């Protein structure tokens, strides 16, 4: 997977992960992939819903050592 940009939102509380993701997404072109790290447990539902609403595609997510990782392709 070709990752264009990484957002590190570890340790940040709601609503920061989504605000940072949105900011970073603005700088991407359609089709490019954003990688996001967060420790906020609400992020799974938050980012899934956010990606869907914005027309982006959540490619993959995983959890390792309490860190949630997401890969979202810009729509």
């Amino acid at each position, binding site marked *: 997977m070709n990752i264009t940009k990484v957002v590190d939102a570890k340790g940040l*509380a*709601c*609503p920061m992960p989504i605000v940072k993701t949105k900011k970073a997404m603005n700088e991407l072109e359609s089709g490019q992939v954003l990688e996001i790290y967060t420790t906020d447990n609400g992020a799974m539902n938050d980012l899934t819903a956010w990606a869907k609403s914005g027309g982006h595609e959540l490619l993959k997510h995983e959890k390792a050592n309490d860190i949630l990782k997401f890969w979202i392709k810009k729509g």
Partner: protein
Amino acid sequence: MTEKKKTTIVLFSGDYDKAMAAYIIANGAAAYDHEVTIFHTFWGLNALRKDENIPVKKGFMEKMFGKMMPRGADKMGLSKMNFAGFGPKMIKDVMKKHNAMTLPQLIEMAQEQDIKLVACTMTMDLLGLQQEELVESIEYAGVAAYLADAEEGNVNLFI
């Protein structure tokens, strides 16, 4: 993309926790690419107050109101467990531990995200608040302007 969706929030409350909820939703909605308006009325106006004393001409009642109301977002009390000002200290401590944003930070973030902050002019008159006492780059309007935004709104809250 279709036309932008709109979120409008009426912030009536002057409580720190309720204002926090309003500003978290507003910032979230902005991240959802909504056009967001927060309409501040009554005690909610205090969230927009500058924290320093601004010398303006006022009558006796207005001066009293000015003294009794919190000067700025950081000085607001909690809706529950305020304990004469001890509650806010405790919650700010907990917030720091959890890396949550404070209300002043949330307001700053809202302005960065181009959220429209509106002060209700009628209640400003009632509470004796003048434009010089409120933070910069906000708008001043009444119920009609709020309704114009709200009638096209997708999310509309009264807090």
